[in-house]
C-alpha cells in the first residue's frame, strides 16, 4: 500500500486537510457569520445604545408577551407529551403508528400555513367568525391566536423525545411498582418521570426555544398591534423595516443568546446523558 499514513481507512493527509478546510469554510460562511453579525450590529453604536433599546416600553411589552406565550405553550405541550407517550409507549392498541405520524404532522406544515388555518377557523370571515363577533370575542389578531399558533408549531417537540425513549424502556418497572403496592400516579411520579427526566428536559428546551422564536405562524395571526400583540420576533421585524438597525439587532441578539444557551444546554445534555436520551438530532 502506498498510503503515506499506513492506514487504509483514511484519506491522504492533503485530502484530509482540504476536506476539513471545506467543511470549516462552509460552516463559517453560511452558519457562523450570520450569528456573529447579529452581535456586531447590536453593538454597532456602543453598549449605551444597545442597553437603551431595552428601556423602550414597546420592546418590554414584546418581551413580556413572548414570556407569556412560552409560559402557556411549554406546559401545555409537556402535559400533552407525557399523556401521549404514556398511552403510546405503555399500551398496545391499533393505529399507533398513524397516531405517531399525526403527532409529527405540524413539523411538515409551513409556519405560515399553521397561522393561516387559525385565521380560517377564527378569523372574521372564518368558520366561527360570526359567532365570535356576536359574542364580542377575539382570538385571531389577539393573544389567544398567538398562543394557539405557537402551540401548533411546537406541538411535537416534547412528545417526540418521550415516545421512542418510553417505548424502549417498556413497562416492566411500572408493573413492578404496582405489584409492590404503589398506586398508578405514584408509579408514574416515582418510576416513569425519573426515567425520562433528561429527555423531558431536552424536549422542553427545544420547545421553549421555538416558542420564543417563532415568526411565520405568529406573524399571520398577530395583527401586529404595537405594544399589544407583538412578540420579540415581530418587534424585530418592525424595527428592522423602520431602519432602526441597532434596536432590531439588540432584540435579535437577545433571541440569539437564547439560541446559544439552548444549544449549549442541549450539547451538555447529549454529552452527559446521551444514553438517557437515546434518539436525538432528528428534526
Amino acid at each position, binding site marked *: 500500500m502506498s498510503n503515506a499514513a499506513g492506514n487504509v*481507512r483514511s484519506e491522504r493527509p492533503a485530502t484530509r486537510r482540504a*476536506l*476539513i478546510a*471545506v*467543511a470549516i469554510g462552509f*460552516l463559517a460562511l453560511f452558519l457562523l*457569520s*450570520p450569528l456573529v*453579525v447579529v452581535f456586531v*450590529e447590536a453593538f454597532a453604536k456602543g453598549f449605551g445604545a444597545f442597553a437603551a433599546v431595552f428601556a423602550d416600553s414597546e420592546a418590554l411589552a414584546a418581551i413580556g408577551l413572548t414570556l407569556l406565550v412560552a409560559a402557556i405553550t411549554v406546559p401545555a405541550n409537556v*402535559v400533552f407529551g407525557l*399523556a*401521549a407517550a404514556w*398511552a*403510546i409507549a405503555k*399500551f398496545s*392498541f391499533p393505529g399507533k403508528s398513524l*397516531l405517531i405520524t399525526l*403527532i409529527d*404532522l*405540524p413539523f*411538515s406544515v*409551513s*409556519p*405560515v*400555513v399553521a397561522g*393561516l*388555518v387559525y*385565521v*380560517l*377557523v377564527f378569523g372574521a*370571515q*372564518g*368558520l366561527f367568525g360570526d359567532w365570535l363577533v356576536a359574542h364580542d370575542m377575539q382570538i385571531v389578531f389577539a393573544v389567544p391566536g398567538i398562543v394557539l399558533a405557537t*402551540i401548533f408549531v411546537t*406541538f411535537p417537540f416534547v412528545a417526540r423525545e418521550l415516545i421512542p425513549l418510553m417505548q424502549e424502556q417498556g*413497562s416492566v418497572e411500572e408493573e413492578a411498582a*404496582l405489584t409492590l403496592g404503589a398506586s*398508578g400516579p405514584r*408509579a408514574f411520579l416515582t418510576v416513569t418521570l425519573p426515567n425520562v427526566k433528561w429527555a423531558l428536559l431536552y424536549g422542553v428546551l427545544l420547545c421553549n426555544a421555538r416558542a420564543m*422564536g417563532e415568526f*411565520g405562524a405568529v406573524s*399571520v395571526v398577530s395583527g401586529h398591534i404595537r405594544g399589544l400583540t407583538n412578540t420579540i*420576533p*415581530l418587534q424585530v*421585524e418592525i424595527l*428592522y423595516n423602520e431602519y432602526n*438597525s441597532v434596536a432590531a*439587532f439588540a432584540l*435579535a441578539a437577545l*433571541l*440569539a443568546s437564547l*439560541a446559544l444557551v*439552548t*444549544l449549549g444546554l*442541549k*450539547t451538555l445534555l447529549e454529552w452527559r446523558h446521551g444514553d438517557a436520551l437515546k434518539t436525538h*438530532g*432528528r*428534526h
Partner: protein
Amino acid sequence: MTLSPAAKAPWRFKAASVLPGFGPAFGFTLLYLSLVVLFPLSVLVWRASGLGFSGLYQVATEPRVAAGLSTTFTISFAAAVIDAVFGLIVAWVLTRYEFPGRGLLDAAVDLPFALPTAVAGISLASLYGPNGFFGAPLAALGIKVAFTRLGILVALIFVGLPFIVRTVQPILLELEPELEEAAATLGASRARTIWRVMLPPLAPAVLTGFALAFARAVGEYGSVIFIAGNIAYVSEIAPLLIVVKLEQYDYAGATGIATIMLAISFAALLAINLVQAWSRKRFGHV
C-alpha cells in the same frame, strides 16, 4: 366498543394491561391533537375542496402565484442539492477526522434549528446587503445577492444544512470498518473504496436529508423574506404570497396556495418513507 355474543374473550380496543391510566391519557391525547392540529387543518382541506380542482388550478396559474410557486420550488431544490453535497462533506469530516474545534463545530451545525428565523433573516439581509460584510465586496465584483433570487438561495442553504448532516452522521458512524479494509486489501484505491463501498449505503440517508431540507425550504418564511426583497414575479416566495393574499382578504387564494404547498410537502414525506423502506430492505438500516 361492541358487545360480542361469542363465548371467547370480547374484542377490546386496547390489549389487556395492569397499568392504569390508558383511558385518560389516550383520550386527552386524541382531544388535544384534534383540537389543536387536526380540526384546523381539516378546515383548510374543507375550504380547499370548496375551490375544487378547477379553482386550485386557477389560483396556481395566476401569473404572480405561478411565479412564486416556481421560485419556491426551484430554489428550494437547488438549496437542498447544495446542502446535500456540503452536508455530506461536513458529516464526513465531523465523524471521521480529529481536529481542534471539532466538538464546537459539531454543536454549531444545529444553529439553524435554534436561531429564530427572523433573526437569521435580518442578519443575512445585513450581511449580504449592499453595505454588508459580504455584500459590499460581492457588489464590487458585480454580484448582487440581497433582494435577488440568489439571496433566497443563501437563506435556504442556511435553513436546510442540519437536516443532511444530522441524518448522515449516525449512518457514517455505523459503517463497518471491515468493508473498507476488505476493499483496500483487494487493491481498490481510496477514491474507489469511497465511491463504490462507502457512499452507496449512505445514499438513502442523503436522500432522506435532502427531502427533509427541501420540505423545510418550501415552507420557510422568516429567514427568507428580509433578504429576498419580495419583488413580484422575481423574488416572491409562495409562503409570502399566502400572507399577501390574507392581507387582501383573499381567503380562497391563500387557501389554494397553502393546499398546493401542503401537497408538495406530503409528497416529499411520502418519498422519504419509500426511500427508508427501500433502504431497510437493501442495507438493513434506515
